[in-house]
């Protein structure tokens, strides 16, 4: 007991006076944080600077941090590339954005419907379907890769956006996230609605959806990002230049430009900047979504 009182005193005396070591410690901590942030951002900083270098400069050794001259025209060169068959940069940007928005919107609609049923309705078979959904989350993507491709050929969806939109319109992860969120909404609100004689479709539309806006936004953003960053499926399904998404176009770029890393890096920047901007605007929703589910594109 006596020891405890003593340490309590020590703790107490440390607070108001704040010795010099406290400031040194705090300073070191911020220095460390800044350093880690810099290291994590280093690839983007170096790549962004690299986009302004000449073809020769970009692979010369030793590499310099800044370009000798700022070749802004590299960005225009990439923007104006034409792979033929309508394969141009604006087109790929549009394709990617279109797919990402479409899939994200469908996810929000269909997944919130399913989540409402799981979280708020009582009917036989509900828990069985929920467990079935959890089980499907265990199936690795590698297993569905080939048969999904065969199915797409049968549905004549190869080289069409339907091949990415249809299977992407729901996902177990999003339903799970929304189910958890809907369950946390107090039931009183809805009971008031039931007394009013509202049906489930009305409770869903008028009570749950407005209250769940943050969670819906989280799903939208995570799915937008997942589709924007998807690579394996688009690579498999989309095979004409006018249908490519940015990721697929980039991988073709890299093979075509070979040593012209400055141009490949411009392509990478075009791909990275929109998602980064979106992230900085909605970082709160992003981070909450990842924290809850561990889903990441």
């Amino acid at each position, binding site marked *: 007991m006596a020891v405890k009182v003593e340490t309590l005193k020590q703790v107490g005396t440390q607070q108001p006076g704040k010795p010099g070591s406290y400031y040194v410690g705090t300073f070191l*901590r911020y220095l460390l*944080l800044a350093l880690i*942030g810099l290291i*994590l*951002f280093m*690839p*983007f900083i170096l790549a962004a600077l*690299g986009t302004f270098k000449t073809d020769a400069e970009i692979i010369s*050794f*030793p*590499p310099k941090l800044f370009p000798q001259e700022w070749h802004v025209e590299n960005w225009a060169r990439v923007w104006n590339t034409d792979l033929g068959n309508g394969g141009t940069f604006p087109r790929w940007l549009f394709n990617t954005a279109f797919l990402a928005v479409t899939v994200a919107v469908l996810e929000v609609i269909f*997944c919130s*419907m*399913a989540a409402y*049923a799981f979280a708020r*309705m*009582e*009917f*036989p*078979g509900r828990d069985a*379907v929920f467990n079935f*959904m959890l089980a*499907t989350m*265990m199936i*690795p*993507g*590698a*297993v*569905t*890769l*080939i*048969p*999904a*491709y*065969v*199915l797409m050929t*049968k549905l004549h969806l190869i080289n069409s956006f339907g091949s990415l939109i*249809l299977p992407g319109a729901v996902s*177990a992860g999003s339903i799970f996230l929304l189910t958890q969120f809907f369950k946390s909404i107090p039931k009183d609100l809805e009971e008031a609605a039931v007394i009013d004689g509202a049906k489930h479709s009305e409770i*869903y539309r008028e009570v749950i959806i407005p209250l769940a806006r943050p969670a819906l936004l989280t799903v939208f953003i995570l799915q937008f990002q997942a589709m924007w*960053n998807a*690579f*394996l499926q688009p690579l498999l399904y989309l095979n004409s230049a006018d249908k490519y998404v940015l*990721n697929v176009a*980039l*991988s073709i770029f*890299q093979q075509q430009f070979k040593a012209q*890393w400055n141009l*490949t*890096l411009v*392509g*990478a920047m075009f791909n990275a900047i929109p*998602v980064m901007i979106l*992230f*900085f605007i909605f*970082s709160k929703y*992003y*981070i909450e979504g*990842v924290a809850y589910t*561990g889903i990441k594109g």
Partner: protein
Amino acid sequence: MTTYETSSTQSNRNLAAILTFLVIVIVLMVIALLNAPTMGGPKVMASASTYLQEVRRTALPFLGAVAVLAIALGMSAARMVYREWPYPKRRLNLIMGYAFLAPYLLITLTFTVGVVLFAFYISFNNYDIFTPPQWAGLSNYAKAFQGKDFLQSLYNVLWYTLIVVPTQTTIAILLAVLLNSSINFKQFFRTIFYAPSVTSSVVITLIFIWFYLKTGYINFFLAKFFGVFGLHWQNINWLGDPRGLIQLIVQAFGGDIPSKQWYFRGPSIAWMSIMFQNIFTTAPTFMIMFLAALQDINPTLYEAASIDGANGWQQFRNITLPLLRPIILLVVVLGTIGTLQVFDQVYLATSGGPLGTSLTPVFIVFREALGSQGPIRMGYASGLAFILAVLIFFFTFLQRRFISNETQLY
């Protein structure tokens, strides 16, 4: 509840049950038909009738098996409807419930369950889309372990998981603890730390390929670093270097490991370069998960511990770590599932080389299914995918057992 006896509701009830049965069986059979194992190609796919002809020729056993399942499911659903029908409120709940679930169920049954059934069937066949599937028994599974490629891919990916998962988990915890300490601008640093992780793996991989060039920044930094000590750094072609970790150690002592004994060489320099990149990009994601968990820990626990004289490390060891265990389990499981299926980095950076030291199961599945190296072998590829799936289940199960057992110690 009151209108139980009238005959009109009784006939409605029967009708509803029969309709349920029919709808379920028809929907499931259409899904099965779409996923029927037949040959593809323009001739068969010309119209619905040519396709159905082909189904009749080769896929009847598959449809028969699915039909048994569909009828069983339809019957139990019909019984459910029959039971609920007389009670208006429960009836409405049942109909509305499945109406809300319908989009999800239709899509998942078609694009997940249907295709998995197809893949499972096809893994026992030789199949290349352009000819009808030919029954091959277990030969696809046997073949997987006869050649070197798949075994080497498993070997690679096990090293990958063994090194990447513990490293990224540790770094993620440390970053999270650092961010959770009493600092200002917590949100700001969290955002900055996580931002690089939102970009696509294609972008990150391309940037890293450039870093790893013989004339790239990694060699440059190492040369600078060793230069400080007056040492000379020999530039390495990181992504093209097949020398293994264990092989390098043996070479340092003047020996060598012949390529016949590749399985003693350990992960190659190329492979470890990809590991480094993966850790770099995944650790911040898991950091976010740990940070959320840390913020849920009651701060009075730390106050009580510091009053008892526990220092920072003891607090971390005895309070933070035990309370983080559920999240650690989740992160380790997610990390393992992810690392066992690594693809993008390999496809872009190395295509499985050098000397197969960066081959991964998913890369081989992709290669065999598309026939980008040799003939299209979809049956074989499906077999490999199922072996990988079993491996993933096994590891998940093991980790769950292992980590939750440990929890009981506390």
